[in-house]
């Protein structure tokens, strides 16, 4: 049913894509774009082929190798994960057979799905885009309705150009005021989840709004939307504005111009109501870091570890009341679809310049989010800044964000990571993960212990 009266951005996109089949049941929603990666994509394509079902419109389906692809420079199809090459070769074969566009291991446009889709203008304001990957919500930063699905739903989307889906509830999260220096979009996301829980967005499509959101550049908006799935939301998105259209202009799959009136309608009308509203004062936020095993176990970096589930304290080996600052770490990682775009690497490089990774750190790595981010960073000399500081500089991929893509560390190793998940075992058996902004990763790598990036910034400014 199409509603009348003032509408939210979500309702506008939903109504545009709703297909009336004349029968009752869940909504049939048209899907404009599908993105696959080698971890889950081959399974979906192979299962479709086995059922004799073609991809309905292959020109609007894309695939990339990002998850288990090796990130060491000079890579081929071999992977650090045992048996991982099969995912790559089978995805390649299945993509070819299905006639979809594939960005292969050493394609100049290869990169993490949610980094390259905006880079190439595949995701656009007002489209529906799905991928069998939970962080698809990242792409909502461009004003799209983008969400993660399972492999079976991906088959459904590719075979029919639609998904059957119940209409979610709507939520608006408004960040008022302005962020203080040293506080980033990552900290906004962690603060939201810490305050409202990892299930806080369940059943909702979440629009991020307010002064602090409008002030974010497009890449930072992606960081914020990236973590909507950590909030259990179906999707997270931000109304497109002049920055969005400027960002997309000239990108390969984007339209030649954005004059179509459709784009001017993509915002929440005055007077439209949401099922749930949350307001957060952005000015009050500090750099955040996770202390436990769920993103909801996050806290201001200069605080004391709060009381949480005993199991989480045990796993992470930090007692309630302990100071987070000064906790020794073994591994530092800047990467992932949350925080490995050019702007992230620029901020990280600016902070680390003239400093060295502490001797006690066993591994420090920067893995660019895409091959084009890598080239752009190298053109600016960022790679040299990182390697001179003691970081390894890698080729693009998911890498240490999850165990299958990365390397192995001894059980009990503690990492500071610009990624989005601090689950038990996410970065390997027994690994203790602290998620934070790239700035906090850099400051901690330099100090050898969890450290406040604002302090390092002060030092560098002197």
């Amino acid at each position, binding site marked *: 049913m199409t509603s009348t009266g003032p509408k939210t951005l979500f309702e506008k996109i939903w109504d545009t894509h709703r297909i009336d089949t004349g029968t009752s049941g869940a909504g049939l929603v*048209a899907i404009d774009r599908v993105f696959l990666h080698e971890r889950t994509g081959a399974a979906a394509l192979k299962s479709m082929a086995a059922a004799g079902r073609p991809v309905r419109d292959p020109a609007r389906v894309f695939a990339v190798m990002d998850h288990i692809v090796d990130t060491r420079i000079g890579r081929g199809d071999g992977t650090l*994960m045992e048996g991982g090459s099969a995912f790559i070769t*089978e995805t390649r074969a299945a993509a070819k057979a299905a006639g979809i566009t594939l960005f292969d291991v050493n394609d100049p446009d290869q990169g993490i799905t949610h980094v390259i889709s905006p880079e190439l203008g595949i995701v656009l304001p007002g489209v529906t885009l799905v991928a069998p990957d939970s962080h698809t919500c990242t792409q909502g930063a461009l004003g799209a309705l983008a969400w993660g699905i399972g492999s079976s*739903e991906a088959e459904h989307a590719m075979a029919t150009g639609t998904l059957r889906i119940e209409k979610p509830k709507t939520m608006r999260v408004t960040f008022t005021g302005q962020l203080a220096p040293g506080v980033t979009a990552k900290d906004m996301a962690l603060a939201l989840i810490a305050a409202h829980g990892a299930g806080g967005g*369940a059943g909702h499509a979440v629009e991020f709004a307010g002064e602090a959101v409008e002030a974010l550049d497009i890449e930072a908006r992606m960081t914020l939307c990236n973590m909507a799935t950590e909030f*259990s939301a179906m999707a997270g998105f931000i109304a497109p504005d002049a920055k969005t259209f400027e960002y997309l202009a000239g990108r390969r799959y984007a339209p030649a111009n954005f004059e179509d009136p459709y784009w001017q309608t993509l915002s929440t009308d005055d007077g439209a109501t949401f099922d749930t509203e949350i307001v957060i004062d952005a000015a009050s936020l500090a750099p955040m870091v996770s202390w436990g095993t*769920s993103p909801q176990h996050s806290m201001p970096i200069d605080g004391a570890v709060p009381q949480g589930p005993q199991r989480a304290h045990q796993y992470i080996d930090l007692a309630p009341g302990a100071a987070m600052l000064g906790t020794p770490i073994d591994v530092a990682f800047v990467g992932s679809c949350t925080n490995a775009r050019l702007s992230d690497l620029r901020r990280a490089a600016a902070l680390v310049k003239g400093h060295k990774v502490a001797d006690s750190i066993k591994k420090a790595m920067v893995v660019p989010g895409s091959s084009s981010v890598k080239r752009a960073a190298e053109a600016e000399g960022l790679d040299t800044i990182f390697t001179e500081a003691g970081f390894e500089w890698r080729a693009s991929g998911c890498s240490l964000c999850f165990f299958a893509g990365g390397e192995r560390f001894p059980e009990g190793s503690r990492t500071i990571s610009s990624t989005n*998940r601090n689950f038990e075992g996410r970065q390997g058996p027994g690994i203790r993960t602290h998620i934070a902004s790239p700035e906090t990763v850099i400051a901690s790598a330099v100090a050898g212990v969890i450290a406040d990036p604002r302090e390092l910034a002060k030092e560098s400014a002197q």
Partner: protein
Amino acid sequence: MTPFTTLTSVAVPILRDNVDTDAIIPSREMKSTGRTGLAEGLFAPWRYSDVAARTPDPTFELNMPEAKGGQVILGGANFGCGSSREHAVWALVEYGIRCVIAESFAPIFRANCIRNGVLPITLPRADVDALAWQEITVDLPAQMVTAGETTHSLTIEDEPRTMLLEGLDVIDLTLKALPAIEAWTDADRTARPWVYLEKTA
């Protein structure tokens, strides 16, 4: 897909909040691009005291003698959060689990359950807790969960209910609406021509 009607089983409690799909099936246990060979890796980090040697951890609920043959597991809030990997549900199915009762579910996991004949039931936490280790009967046609003298009504939207009851292939179902989809697409091509791409590569 196997239809779901009724089942009677012990309810095995895994009553933690935010049980994520990395815990249900760790990435390293997804060894092929297929949907099988996953049951052994189910809950591997919790089920085995030594994952490589596959040494069972006797303190993990699924390993307890009374869990034997259980087809229902109980969970806390936000069950199935994290990665979208459908392997989590495939692993559950291969192990023999047909129903998960939890305080709440992460959305992608819940949709994956329905696509694979696993019934996700949401109940208030106190009710979930009370079902632990009970012999329960889940009756989807009657929309009831019964444990001894206690019954709870089970709510699920019409379409997932029908899909589970009939074990429907959803893609076939949707393809029946192809004329409506094509008509919509033709109109949309005019309204939003920029959505439609020419095949380049």
